[in-house]
């Protein structure tokens, strides 16, 4: 199956068209220019290959502004081409690039000195998360695990979600007969998401193509009634 992968949940704008062993990838590393570069990358990939049969999008968690560019783009492409769109937790796509003998953590920059994180077993299966917290507030056992991704504390270039991995994961989950999580992510309460989006996807791997915000918006009603 020809799958178009998209991820903009990190500083990387990543697009890939995956069809069996064939992969066309375009990427730009610039966390402030997702909106400017993504469509250009897409046109290059689309011009080179055939129209996809499925779109798979990294749904974060990650900084909202960039994340929304990718998720919106995926949704609208799906509408314009009449092809289905699925979401993949972006941390899962980072985890898929990790080789580790035991449990490990994947982290992404959540700003405000916090990290988005999820825990994986040696088979790269998510066992906890995604969650958001300060790294120094993790319990001792979790904090002791090897960390990969952004804020991993290593000096090497961090692993980031890649569109080709997103596309491959989506294909593998579908082949394995998994169905898309349609768990009720109630985005109609935009002011009230305190983590419900993440709770609803724990244990799911094939997600609806909507952002995993996890945190509620910064907004305080007059008089402090948030």
């Amino acid at each position: 199956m020809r799958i178009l992968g998209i991820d903009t949940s990190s500083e990387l704008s990543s697009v890939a068209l995956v069809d069996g062993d064939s992969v066309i990838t375009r990427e730009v590393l610039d966390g402030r220019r997702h909106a400017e570069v993504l469509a250009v990358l897409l046109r290059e990939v689309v011009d080179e290959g055939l129209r996809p049969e499925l779109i798979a999008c990294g749904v974060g968690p990650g900084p909202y502004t960039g994340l929304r560019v990718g998720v919106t783009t995926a949704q609208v492409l799906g509408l314009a081409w009449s092809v289905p769109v699925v979401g993949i937790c972006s941390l899962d796509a980072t985890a898929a690039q990790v080789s580790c003998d035991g449990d490990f953590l994947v982290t992404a920059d959540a700003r405000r000195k916090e990290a988005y994180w999820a825990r994986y077993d040696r088979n790269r299966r998510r066992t906890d998360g995604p969650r958001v917290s300060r790294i120094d507030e993790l319990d001792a056992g979790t904090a002791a695990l090897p960390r990969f991704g952004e804020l991993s504390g290593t000096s090497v270039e961090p692993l980031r979600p890649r569109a080709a991995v997103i596309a491959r994961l989506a294909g593998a989950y579908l082949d394995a007969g998994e169905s898309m999580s349609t768990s009720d992510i109630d985005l109609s309460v935009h002011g009230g998401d305190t983590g419900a989006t993440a709770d609803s996807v724990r244990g799911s791997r094939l997600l609806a193509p909507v952002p995993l915000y996890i945190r509620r918006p910064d907004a305080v009603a007059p008089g402090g009634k948030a």
Partner: protein
Amino acid sequence: MSNGPLVLGIETSCDETGVGIVRGTTLLVDAVASSVEEHARFGGVVPEVASRAHLEAMVPTIERACSEAGVSLSDIDAFAVTAGPGLAGALLVGTASAKALAVALGKPIYAVNHLAGHVVVDELEHGPLPESAIGLLVSGGHSSLLLVHDDAQDVTSLGATLDDAAGEAFDKVARLLDLPFPGGPHIDRVARDGNGSAIAFPRGLTASHDMAEHEFDFSFSGLKTSVARWITKEKAAGTSINVADVAASFQEAVVDVLTRKAVAACLANDAQHLVIGGGVAANSRLRALAQERCDEAGISLRVPSPKLCTDNGAMIAAVGAKLVRQGAQPSTLDFPTASVLPVSTVVVRDAG
């Protein structure tokens, strides 16, 4: 039936997700999903809440627009989208959507200025603007006077607010009077039972020493402060507040300045037409006083129906269709959004 390009416009600069489709200067559909109620409890638009709502509403609103207009996305000749000014995160949802449509369907895209849309939208109801016109744009986000040349690619800013937007002043005074958000419609309603000349609130930037430098600029924060002081003083004196009179007198102060400066701008620039746009254009007293003063000055007043005055996708499609008709060069896919965008930039061409 008119001919002309079939253009789909997307608008997400504030809290309305707008998708409009026009053919030439004929409006086919104006679909809007608003998140205003989600902002009401915060007493103002919360950018992050608006961005989340835009993303959620985008695909359903595009679908609704196409089905109501009876067109399919592949029929569209060009896409237009608000590039600015507006809330940065909100603009990104609209531009990402329009770019995705342009890529998927291989059609040109025009990244246009929201403010030009508020003027050009009038062509959908009252026909092409025959010559230069003055635009008075008043909403929660803007208060400005523009000179729009017949070719809408040429827009000059004559003046703007130095502090609060007119709609913002309505919101703030509504809060002082314990009226709900957004304040405009509530003040308009309450003021109908009041006396607009009961209290002499100040007219910002109309004194002769201000006019030299700020002939066509506005200032509403002093007016708001003056209303607040007046209420505090009356309460301290134990007088009960006549809400209708306060609302009417405040509203009169705002629309007096707006219409006086707008008509003066027409006369100073030999413009025969005044177009009023933005949410505050729905204010009944503004419409009445503008009509009165335009009639006196021999100027034709053009005010779109209230639904086209507030932010919507049709106004963006209208600009796009005009640009297509003029053979204007489309934007490239890498164009940026601009939360601050001068009115003279009608089309954002590229990243440069």
